[in-house]
């Protein structure tokens, strides 16, 4: 499944990035992308072109903070970490998504037999 550029998806991408950083700790951009693909169990192939701009946007919004460093195999990369407001934002978005999926579930159940 390829990703289309829509606002909804951009929002989910943000959620996935924040969640990944929350669970795995500081990670560079490439690593985040790989991890998202792994988490979706291969169902997701990220448009890598949108990942990095999205990371920059999150950084501008203050949810993550990036710093240049060196990876394990000696490569230069920018490492991101979640900030305190990033934590808060993560909790906020997660709750919204949970509510949204509950509502959508009800609608999905509508079409099925009572």
């Amino acid at each position: 499944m390829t990703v289309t550029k829509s606002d909804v998806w951009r929002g989910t991408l943000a959620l996935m990035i924040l969640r990944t950083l929350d669970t795995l700790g500081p990670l560079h951009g490439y690593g985040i992308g790989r991890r998202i693909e792994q988490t979706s169990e291969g169902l997701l192939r990220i448009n890598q072109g949108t990942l990095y701009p999205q990371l920059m946007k999150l950084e501008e919004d203050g949810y993550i903070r990036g710093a240049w460093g060196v990876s394990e195999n000696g490569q230069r990369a920018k490492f991101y970490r979640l900030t305190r407001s990033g934590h808060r934002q993560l909790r906020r978005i997660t709750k919204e998504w949970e509510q949204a999926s509950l509502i959508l579930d009800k609608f999905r159940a509508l079409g099925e037999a009572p």
Partner: protein
Amino acid sequence: MTRLVRRLINVFRRGQLERELDAELQSHLQFETERNLRAGMPPREARRRAHVRLGSVEQIKEHWRDTRPLGRWLDFTSDFAWAVRRLWKHRALTVTVVTTLALGIGSTVLMFSIVNGVLLQPLPFPVASELVSLGESSPGWRDNPVASYTYRVWREHSESFESLAVMHRTERSIEGRGEPLIVDAAHVSANYFDTIGIRPALGGTFDTAASGRPVVLSHHLWTRLGADPGILGTTLRIVDRPHVVVGVMPPITMSGPFIGLGDCWIWSGTDRVPEDYRPGSYRGRTVIGRLKPGVSVEQARADLATIQRQLEAEYPQFYANVGVTVTPLREVVVGRARPALAMLFAAAALLLLIACANVANLLLARSVERQHEVGIRLSLGARPWHIVRQLLVESLVLSLAGGVGGVLAAMAGSRVLAGTIGSTVPRMESVSMDAGVLLFSVGLAVVTAAVCGTAPALTAARGDLQTATRDAARGSSSGPGRQRVRQVLVSAEVALTLVLLVGSALLIRSFMRLADVDLGFRAGHVLTAELRILDLKYPVEGGARDALLRRLSARLQALPEVTSVGASYYFPFSARENTQHVIVEGRPVPSGQEPTVQYTGVIGDFLPAMGIPLVRGRLWTAEEMWTRPGGVVVSESLARMVWPNDDPIGKRVTHDRAPRPGWATVIGVVGDVRQRSVEQPPLPQWYFPYSNYSWPLMTLAIRTTGDPAALVPAVRQAVREIDPDLPLHRLMPLEDVIAGTLAGRRLAFALLAGFAAVSLVLAVVGVYAALAHAVQQQAKEIAIRAALGASVGTIVSRVMRNGLIAVGIGCVAGVALSVVGTRVMRELLFEVSATDAVSFGAAVFVLVVVATGACYLPARRAAAIDPASSLQT
């Protein structure tokens, strides 16, 4: 809150952010490649897949940029910074282009501000479009002064005017505050100030009911007299008669003797003319009118023409064949400057076009070198519009820099010009760099950017991938299309330069013709001075005036190195003249049809002092000059006109304004003199002894064997010894007076020649650069030829041939353009046709010689190309 702050800061960190994005993408590619390698792919494949998976880096950056706030706008600022960096890197090209543009834009802005100030700016009078100058016309002459009677009739019977004022300008001596001064005075009617619409700032105008003689001073004169605010009511002696100062005018930013703007205004009393005033009196008044709102100049002309016809019917002896002219005031003030200004503006525009062609050529050459870079960028996914935009911004930066340089150059130039030519060009004082001029130059810079930036930008972007890489590999230049464009540009430059050169050549020949003109007198070694004799101190009756004049003559004659001394009332080239009607004894002629001649009264040895040759007969004896004045000397053309088959000597004549009855005898014939200007032919003239007239003003002519300018202090001293109160005005060598009348021509020529010289330099640079660049691009081919045994001569002539073809085409086009273009200059030429073959030939010759030199240098360089090293790269 902090988010907003961060957003704001990031607006300025845009460049840095973009670089970080770029770095992250590179880092990503490295990771991906690494991963592919570990998966077992060969290195090439690993890298390729990584790139394909990511997509176009350029596009990612573009899209990111689009999401930025102020996305599009900030593109320009980053383009701007990029352009500036790049231009700085190629300093030589940048400096050449900026200088070329500065010259072109600067000269155009300078000419435009002069044209704006002189021709376009409104005159400093309220509703100046309503102001007109009225005059009479007779066959061959127009806008002549009129008689007081004519003025009164016009005033009483014309319906077209709000008000009609009359004036007559003379020089008067003023005393009362320090040294006596000679000033430009205008005798005006009481409604003069209302007509021009400017009233005194201090005090008021003339009260016609009051007695006494009122005078209004100009601001400048008031300042000269001490700027005393209490000057109202005080008395000044003008021509020895007391005048009361009733007003002081505000400063007027204009000088104009022809509209009565001088140093002071005296009431002429014309309004108080008795009812039985005679027509046909002295024609010396200028009339200024303010049209009624809504009345056009044509309507006024028709109206006055009707009135004039009635006058003709009533008094045919004075008004036969005399028409009326109505000229808008602006035309009077600037009309004569217009042809020269128009020509110079056209010349400046041509210079600008040449500068643009040069710049386009240079930028085109540069774009060839950028072809490679552009191709690669296009293949990496950069949008063509982006590349075009960058190149356009670069051109804009260049032309703005050129525009700024041009404006600075124009400002410096106008300061220099104002100092040197302020007296020659009317209204120079109102020339300034105002908003209009700045706007014009900014507009010019932008247009130049569009013109110069388009060709290179479009061809650069259009260059597709294949041609770009192939050409880069071959190391050779542009395709035939691009070469054609450049050749056309070179030919265009050459053609336009030729037009300017032809124009300059025509003016040079005019000058040479002017210098050859025989003025009828010998101007070298003559000092002139204007003298005014105070009426009351030296009245004519009793001989006091004559005694003074004789003493003066003798004293000046006694000065060392002086050979002859004389004076005349009307002097050549003095813009003062008058005419009389000749009445010959025994030859009655119907009134109104007598021959008209110039006249003057002379003192002493005026004719010998001026070097006017005696052709027949003799000059006056001392007795005829002083004690019993008699005898008249006529000019050759007068003799031919009045006595075509007879000897004039001994004939008796008089004229319509003779001060005393009786006939005068013609005693001699002298050569003709050009009275008005170098261009205008001599008019029939006769000379009477001065004592016939009672005018107190005259111009001295003192011939010396040495330098006339060196005589000035001695002359001043001599006059002061006789009477310290005699004001002596405008002591100047006669040659300077004549040169002064040619100042306008000289100026127009100097400017045009300046433009032509600059454009020649630019064209030469353009030809050289184009050819040098072509040689550079074709280095490999030339090297091959040389390796194959072509001689130096062959190579040189091959290279030069291309250049000379372009130059040749340019010359032909230039000649064609010049034939059409120089028609515009016809009014400025003197005895030279607008298609004068010698001028054309000379201009073509100069251009071809110089252009050939410009072609030779790169050709020589081509021949010096070392085949071995060129072919190796």
